[in-house]
């Protein structure tokens, strides 16, 4: 065999190695970019065709509170768990109150040794939302201050119940 054949075979093998590497990375690419990131508002159908990059701007729109897209501050639309085991869970707000606690009958059932079975209630009255501690053992906190009785709850303010933090969002 000639020197040229050797060189070609030698370089060809290196090319083969890298072709394999890039083919493998091509498969991985689907793992990296092929995931869709959906906003947790049940709008997965609309966001579905967008890839990770495209989803970024659309995702921030419904989540962040003061956006130009939604200028009408008609009050919060959902309750979001922002910390604790159920983080990410959202509860749409209606006109009825939301009960937090360990009891299965609560609207948001917290699996938390530090919450009472009927721990706190979040309810609307006259267009404003209020939070009420229902005599819990470990207390309900707003900004690390233990509340007693009924307090108004503006959107974006976290309420800590045991290890979980919930807040109202628009």
């Amino acid at each position, binding site marked *: 065999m000639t020197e040229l054949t050797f060189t070609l075979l*030698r370089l060809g093998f290196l090319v083969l190695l890298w072709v394999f590497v890039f083919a*493998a990375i091509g498969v991985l690419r689907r*793992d990296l970019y092929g995931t869709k990131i*959906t906003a947790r508002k049940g709008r997965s159908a609309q966001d579905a065709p967008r890839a990770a990059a495209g989803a970024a701007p659309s995702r921030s729109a419904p989540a962040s509170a003061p956006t130009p897209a939604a200028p009408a501050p008609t009050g919060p639309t959902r309750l979001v768990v922002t910390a604790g085991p159920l983080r990410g*869970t959202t509860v749409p707000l*209606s006109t009825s109150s939301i009960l937090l606690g360990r009891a299965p009958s609560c609207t948001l059932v917290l699996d938390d040794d530090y919450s009472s079975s009927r721990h706190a209630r979040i309810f609307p009255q006259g267009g404003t939302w209020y939070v009420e501690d229902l005599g819990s053992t470990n207390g309900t906190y707003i900004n690390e201050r233990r509340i007693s009785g009924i307090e108004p709850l503006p959107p974006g303010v976290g309420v800590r119940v045991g290890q979980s933090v919930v807040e109202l969002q628009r």
Partner: protein
Amino acid sequence: MATVEPHAARPAKRPSRGAEAGLLVLALAIGIGAYALVGFGLLDEVPEQFVPYSLGLVALAVVGHVVLRIKAPYADQVMLPVVVALNGLGLAMISRLDIGGQLVGSTKEFASRQFMWTALGVVAACAVVWFLKDHRTLRKYSYTAMIVGLVLVMMPLLPGIGQNINGARIWVNIADFSLQPAEFAKIAFAIFFAGYLVTNRDTLALAGPKVLGLQLPRLRDLGPLVIVWGASLAVLIFERDLGTSLLFFGLFVAMLYIATERFSWVVIGLSMFAVGAVVAASVFPHVAARVDVWLHPLDPEIFGRSPGGSGQLVGGMFGLANGGLTGTGWGQGYPRLVPYANSDFIYTSLGEELGLAGLLAILVMYLVLVERGLRTAIGVRDGFGKLLAGGLAFVMAWQLFVVIGGITRIIPLTGLTMPFVAHGGSSLLANWLVIGLLLRISDNARRPSSLPVRGQVAAHAAGPTSGSQPVAVGSRSQEAVDAGEARAAVGPARGGPSQDHPTQVVRTDLPENAEGPMTGATEIIDDTERKNL
């Protein structure tokens, strides 16, 4: 807030595994092509064994592929091809060194034995995938695994079967087979750490005094871990095997860190190891010699030293230099000048004949393999699987670092083997077992779950929620328990200690995928969540 899901929105039918088949064809082309080029380079014709060798390699790959199609259709599609390619490269290089030796009159023959171990490894990995229905079964055997691991580590010390080769007492000789039990011990220890830490991580992470901003664990929580740490030290002292000791210790620290998310463990681990290393270097002459070789390999005095000289290391470095950017080509270099060119120093053999371009391709293959392991750990839903996959992937990366770091003078040289490539039956078999386990876990991780995704449930199910209606997520009491585990899998909550937490109960009898449904993606979405909140 956002959640990450696979693109093909939970495929209902089994994936075809076409990507794996395609990559396997390329991987086989690499293995077989390398073998053919070895022949061309050394003998000007294809090697004698070319046809049986090629058919055997193809058969093994096909067996692996078919077993995965039948038993683990959702398993990762990249791991098997990458491993087949690496194994093929290793076999080709070992054959090349054999043939090179035969040309100058040596009769030593390692390749056929290595091929036999490859076959055994593929069969073992397939057996793991075939018979192990659910990796959580292994959790029941956590403490058994610890004992098995300790026995394996101590085996070479037993008189009669233990063998002392080149000053290191890490081999056992059973029925004509020479084995390195430590290679298997690393799997046993990974299983033990995963099982132990998934039960105890809350206590390890949260209980204990805080010193200088580091959360220190309580002494009594450390018992089993100290035993294993002692075992790794014993390896260092009595078996004189730096590499294995480093391997166990790295595994130990990494898995603690994965389990508890406490940086203090890394600090504690590194300082413990630093102390151990300094003491070892000053007490044991063989360790001190390694350090000398590492720091001053080109010193004439150290180069010429009879036991513990730097000739091997320097030879390897010259080999790499001779390879240059694109290498000399298969069969055109002089890798045989380096002692143990087919096992400990196969990296420089490959570097000489494939060059930097080839070496980097090989390293990227390992990177892909480790990435797939870690991705599996992120994707799998139960804490035990996360720890096991994370630990196994880490130990492979760590082993590679210790080997290549030693050869390229980043750390002192230790005697570990390059996974899948280097000659050595135990290493090959053990690493194929690791791949079998990772494939099994990844199948469980990627299999579509019948349970809804957390977070989305609230949005869909709670549409017309009235105040008294429970939200689906929180209302399932079983789920509530699992959510606790899910939280623990992501990292212990900073809120407070929960020593009486349900995670403490060892539960292995759960139905498939019954544990916290969104554990996998939670880690990914953490940052975006914070931004958007």
